[in-house]
């Protein structure tokens, strides 16, 4: 007992000490913020002291010397996200240049709808808001300022979208209230990674078979089977898992929607839009989906598909991938790659060819695939908005405008020149290994970097015509991070990037794309919404069951019976109405 108490005491003392030391450190770091209080915590107190919940701190009354005109705005983002420190260095630089500082608050431990509901009930809004799934509720509550009277005064902001694109943001009353800030390309696209869904395969598996052409689902599983037979374990003796499927909670898209892509359609998410007939089609019941699940079932019974796939959690899935045991899976890049690639690098598995490359599979040979869509996907369901509580709407719009200024944009995403990135003789930005490490560090991100990630931004090419708007898209940055087996793999297929690797056709998507921006916002108020929710529940239960069944046909027909019971026709007809509306609006 005594020694336990002692240990506890020591630990407490150590922690208190490092905590105090930490504050000293922060203070030293924020030197240019001289009058801002003794430490980060204290600084927050002084600047927020006269403020009440949700109120906007209009008065520039923070103790900072010499920058009396800085307006402090608040912003609530109904998504989880990383908080930055008060007195963040780049935030201060931006504040000096634009006269605006935005304090971001993120969603914590609630659903977006719940958080927005509470804020609306309270009636006091932050200056900026991105309501996420609760965005419509904000509009309904008349909480947002219409952009129509302002947009013309701010050319850069207006230039974010074409008139036609802006029109898609119009609400029932014909006005624009928000702009989605993601996936918006300026100039030429610099995309090198395929951020979306694909069947992924480890580069070493392709290398082992001398980089064969893999075009169909059958060829894909055939390769996995052959490789698994020849190499049942990894070098260290761990058993390999040829194929796994994530189907935890909302991430079950990994099992659910491959049918639409295998049929050669783009990611409308919940339905297929047949462009010949302009009719909504249900991919859940399509012949291709049927064949896809039959294949999965066959491979499951052969032992190729991970037998624990249906019960694994996301953490377990990522852990499996990280060990390099898993040869392939269907997933979206952002769902696994950031974490898994970090581990590969740390463990040296990237040099052994464990990194995943995307394959643009279709169900039969000779079909075009649209796994990658080249144009921007404009999600009109939510975005940054200015609320009626904002006391200086003009300044708020001016700040949105300033966010798109190239200098500010570079500060947000690249950082400070010479500190966070270098410029070579050709004017190209690059990061040293040390800078790359630093910019990935959590504390550095909080104390130094300030991306304002939910305010207007661009992808693509910078206005200088050379650099990428955001570092991950910078060609040199991309190649610097590419392990040798990937370089070999790309070379063998005669491509240079992930995007070229997947080889999707560059076909423009219709003005209705993506349809999921409508289905995501459906509620149980309409029969279609009820059907949509029920279909989700049925698929959650049945898709893994179908894959794991001993007799596929019986399981599939049971599944279809359950599925029909959800009245998918209600859902489809509402989707059809929306498709007609979107297509009609575009004309």
């Amino acid at each position, binding site marked *: *007992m005594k020694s336990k108490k002692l240990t506890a005491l020591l630990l407490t003392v150590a922690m208190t000490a490092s905590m105090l030391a930490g504050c000293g450190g922060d203070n030293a770091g924020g030197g240019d913020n001289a009058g801002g209080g003794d430490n980060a915590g204290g600084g927050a107190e002084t600047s927020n002291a006269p403020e009440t919940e949700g109120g906007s701190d209009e008065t520039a009354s923070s103790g900072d010397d010499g920058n009396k005109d800085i307006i402090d705005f608040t912003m609530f983002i109904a998504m989880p996200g990383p908080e930055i420190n008060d007195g963040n260095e780049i935030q201060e630089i931006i504040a000096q240049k634009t006269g605006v500082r935005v304090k971001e608050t993120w969603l914590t431990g609630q659903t977006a709808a719940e958080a927005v509901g509470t804020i609306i009930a309270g009636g006091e809004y932050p200056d900026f808001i991105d309501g996420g*799934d*609760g965005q419509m509720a904000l509009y309904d509550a008349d909480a947002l300022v219409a952009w129509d009277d302002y947009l013309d005064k701010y050319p850069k902001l207006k230039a974010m979208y074409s008139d036609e694109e802006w029109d898609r943001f119009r609400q029932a009353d014909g006005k624009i209230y928000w702009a989605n800030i993601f996936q918006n390309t300026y100039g030429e696209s610099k995309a090198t990674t395929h951020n979306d869904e694909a069947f992924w395969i480890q580069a070493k598996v392709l290398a082992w078979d001398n980089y064969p052409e893999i075009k169909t689902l059958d060829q894909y599983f055939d390769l996995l089977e052959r490789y698994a037979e020849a190499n049942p374990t990894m070098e260290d003796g761990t058993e390999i898992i040829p194929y796994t499927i994530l189907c935890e909670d909302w991430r079950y898209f990994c099992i659910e929607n491959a049918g639409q892509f295998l049929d050669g359609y783009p990611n409308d998410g919940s339905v297929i839009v047949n462009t010949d007939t302009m009719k909504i089609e249900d991919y859940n019941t399509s012949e291709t989906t049927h064949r896809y699940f039959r294949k999965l079932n066959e491979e499951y019974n052969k032992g190729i598909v991970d037998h624990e796939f249906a019960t694994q959690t996301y953490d*377990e899935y990522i852990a499996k991938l990280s060990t390099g045991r898993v040869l392939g899976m269907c997933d979206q890049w952002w769902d696994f790659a950031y974490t898994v690639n970090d581990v590969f690098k740390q463990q040296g598995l990237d040099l052994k060819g464990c990194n995943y490359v995307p394959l643009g599979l279709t169900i039969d040979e000779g079909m075009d695939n649209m796994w990658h869509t080249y144009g921007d996907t404009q999600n009109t369901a939510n975005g940054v908005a200015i609320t009626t509580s904002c006391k200086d709407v003009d300044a708020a719009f001016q700040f949105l405008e300033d966010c798109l200024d190239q200098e500010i944009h570079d500060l947000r995403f690249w950082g400070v020149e010479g500190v966070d990135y270098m410029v070579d003789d050709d004017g190209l930005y690059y990061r040293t290994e040390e800078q790359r490490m630093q910019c990935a560090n959590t504390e550095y991100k909080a104390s130094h970097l300030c991306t304002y990630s939910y305010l207007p931004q661009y992808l693509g090419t910078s206005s200088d015509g050379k650099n990428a708007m955001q570092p991950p898209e910078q060609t040199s940055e991309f190649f610097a991070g590419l392990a040798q087996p990937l370089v070999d793999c790309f070379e063998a297929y005669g491509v240079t990037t992930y995007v070229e690797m997947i080889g999707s056709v560059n076909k423009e998507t219709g003005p209705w794309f993506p349809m999921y921006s409508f289905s995501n916002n459906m509620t149980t108020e309409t029969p279609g919404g009820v059907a949509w929710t029920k279909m989700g529940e049925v698929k959650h239960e049945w898709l893994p069951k179908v894959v794991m069944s001993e007799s596929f046909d019986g399981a599939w027909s049971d599944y279809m019976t359950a599925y029909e019971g959800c009245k998918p026709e209600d859902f489809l007809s509402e989707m059809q109405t929306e498709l007609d509306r979107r297509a009609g609006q575009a004309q």
Partner: protein
Amino acid sequence: MSRGKKKAKQEITWKEIKRQKVLLIWAALFVIYGFIFYYLPLGGWIMAFQNYKPKTGLFHSKWIGLDKFKFLFSDATFIRVIRNTLAMGTINLVTSFIMAIVFAILLNEVKNVLGKKLVQTISYLPHFLSWIIVTGILHDALSSTGIVNELLQKFGFISSQINFFAHESYFWPIVAFSNLWKETGWNAIIYLAAITAIDPSLYEAASIDGAGRWAKIRYITLPGIKPTIMILLLMNVGNVLNAGFEVQYILGNGLVQKVSQTIDIYVLNWGISQNDYSLGTAAGIFKSAVSIVLILIANRIAKRSGEESLF
């Protein structure tokens, strides 16, 4: 303790009121407090009879009568989640209740003071871990390569690995176990405190009479903590519909969703994430009604049999 006699004693007379003026004033203050903080928000229950929208608020939303209740009770899924909630609630109630009492009594029998304190402190530590951590460890231990499968295979209980999370029949026991794991030590605190209130001289006297350990537990310890047991039992009976949310949500998956979903998960799927506040409120009213009915029945039974009662 016959009721009639008590009643006579408690007759409201001016004299008696005057006598306990202080108590009445205090009680009144507590009633005011309770009314403001617990009963006033119940005005929000009118949401269940409205199509509540944040824009129109509590006072101007459209009235829809009993539509939300009709929706709930005509949905086979809701009936199923009631069953799941009741089942898990009851299993959890019984197991955690018994386990906490047994643990408290056995711990009390540990004569080594240091050991006793140590066990006591360690046992309540898991209470401070979040469900996400505890279920993460549990998921790990029960996976096909986890320790449980390893042990079961080693000792020859099973020939091939069991995927515990793929079978509906394992789900409720797993939830019950995780509750026990996390909360037994915490739940035992109250009984340990009650045991200390037992007069030590009773044990001494019993020892002199030659009573053994079991006799002392049975005739002194258990009766000593019986009022606490009764009160907690009654309170928990009203909580069977609060079988939880997080454990089931994290441990559940598509294969077992028929048995894993509770009322709270249903409300999340069909209410909160659909911007539908009214449905959740309706489900909440239903839960409250059931709880209060259960409590009234349980309390009546307790009173009839002369046991400690809530009111």
